[in-house]
């Protein structure tokens, strides 16, 4: 569905590439997590994949067409993006926010059709926020708000969800619920690309993890292939150990200067 080959981004007046030689592919029913230290190029990666920043070299193709050739309203019917930060200036209702997912399919003056309303209802249902539809968004909890935003992307009938640190502001329980929701959607055939700092959750849910460091891919593959203690310690510049729990590798940060042998 989405494929990047040698994608490179260098901002004007920058001395280094923000993203260098990225190869990436994601198809229907795949769950890809992207991780890496702060400033590793995660945001540039999202912007490059969605054509929000021009590529210096390389290609990004969505469904076989170069991303730069997509019109915004066509792109919005294939890809649903949840930017990391989104603050509401006005007090919208949940159903209105989810209805924005239909924007790209509506004429300037035409009202929402029954099909549009049905898509909004389905999206509210699938994201488990149907009971909140009349609520004002400024009364929602962080977890509810993220589910509403996912519902909006579902109302776009997007086939690829791109979530930029969706659980950064969520507590542990709500984070797990959100990942469960995304995993369920992936099970129904959606592709999901989730940017996250939370490697342990990524290891549990994502089919593949892409680890970025300094704009380059440091490792890519299954959780077992990427979450190796030497690699992570060097990328994050902090000693870590990796254990296996419930069948997934899990990372434990160590005391400064600790070595593997201290672990028991």
């Amino acid at each position: 569905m989405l494929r990047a080959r040698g994608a490179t981004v260098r901002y004007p007046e920058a001395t280094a590439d923000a993203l260098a030689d990225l190869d990436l592919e994601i198809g229907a029913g795949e769950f890809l997590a992207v991780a890496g230290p702060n400033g590793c190029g995660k945001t540039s990666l999202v912007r490059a994949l969605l054509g929000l920043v021009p590529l210096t070299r390389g290609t990004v193709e969505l469904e076989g067409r170069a991303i730069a050739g997509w019109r915004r309203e066509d792109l919005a019917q294939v890809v649903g993006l949840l930017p990391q930060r989104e603050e509401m200036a006005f007090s919208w209702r949940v159903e209105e926010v989810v209805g924005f997912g239909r924007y790209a399919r509506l004429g300037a003056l035409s009202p929402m059709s029954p099909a549009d309303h049905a898509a909004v209802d389905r999206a509210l249902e699938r994201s488990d926020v149907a009971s909140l539809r009349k609520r004002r968004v400024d009364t929602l909890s962080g977890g509810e708000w993220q589910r509403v935003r996912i519902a909006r992307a579902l109302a776009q009938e997007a086939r690829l969800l791109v979530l930029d640190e969706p659980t950064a502001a969520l507590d542990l329980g709500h984070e797990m619920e959100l990942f469960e929701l995304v995993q369920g959607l992936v099970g129904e055939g959606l592709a999901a690309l989730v940017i996250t700092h939370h490697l342990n959750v990524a290891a549990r849910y994502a089919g593949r993890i892409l680890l970025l460091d300094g704009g380059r891919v440091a490792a890519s593959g299954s959780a077992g292939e990427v979450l190796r203690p030497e690699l992570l310690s060097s990328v994050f510049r902090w000693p870590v150990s990796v254990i296996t729990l419930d069948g997934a590798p899990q990372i434990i940060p160590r005391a400064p200067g600790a070595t593997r042998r201290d672990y028991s």
Partner: protein
Amino acid sequence: MRAIVGLGLFGLAACFLGLAVGAVPIPPGAVLDALFSSDAPAAGIVRNLRVPRVLLAFVVGGGLGVAGTALQALVRNPLADPYLLGISGGAGLAAVVAIAFGLDGAWSTPLAAFAGGLGGVALVYRLSAVAGRPLDPRVLVLAGVVVSAFAGALITAVLTLSPAEKLRNSFLWLLGGFSASSWQALGVFSAYAAIPILSLGRAARSLDLLSLGEEPAEALGLSVRKARRVVYLSASLLTAASVAVCGIVGFVGLIAPHALRTLLGPAHRRLLPAVFLASGGFLVAADALARTVVRPIELPVGVVTSLIGVPLFALLLRRSLK
């Protein structure tokens, strides 16, 4: 729909009040007679003076309301007013200069104000482009503040140097009013204002998305840059023309959008028509008050809108923050 009907009735009531009151009060029955028969005793005053004045105030008020609503979505701040973008500063300066140089005719001051308003907008745009981020709402607001402050200093300088007989005219103009209304002015303004008002109405859905911020709006399929250009240009042209017609009348573009957003929700397809009716009615009523409070002297309508506007606004602010 109920809201639109209600606000329509409010607008009509305000207009009827505007026809009846003034230096010479006319009883309601005589107003109706004058409207329906050209031989009625009050027909001259009502038809030649008050009808164009009331209608002009209504369209100008409605336009300011629509421009304010659109700018609030553009800069993502419900407290933005249509003069935010340097229009009032530029228009005021140009008008004061024109009056100081003896260009205080029926058309020369408005034309100077219009040109000055657009000049102020252009300067704000230019400043935000220097920062490398043309039409970035945050930079626009800052540039607007800077340009307004600069124009304010120059206005004070020009006023200080103006001869005494020009001072009164300048002050009256700066505070706004509809005493120079005519059928001609109504025709010119309405024909002109129709285009930006309709293009903002057409952009109602884009305004919804603009209010979400750049990234979410792009992701939902809006070409943000294009949409911002349309809104910025339409709102600027509309506000500059209003300032040319009646001077700087504060709070009209702020109160109705703010009150109706809490009442009807922020969706612009519903909000814009409601705001047009409410702001139009508000300005007509304010103008009616301006003509009667200290009759036969006429207060500048900007004084009335501010006197009503500030306490009303404080009340709304208090309620919306609860």
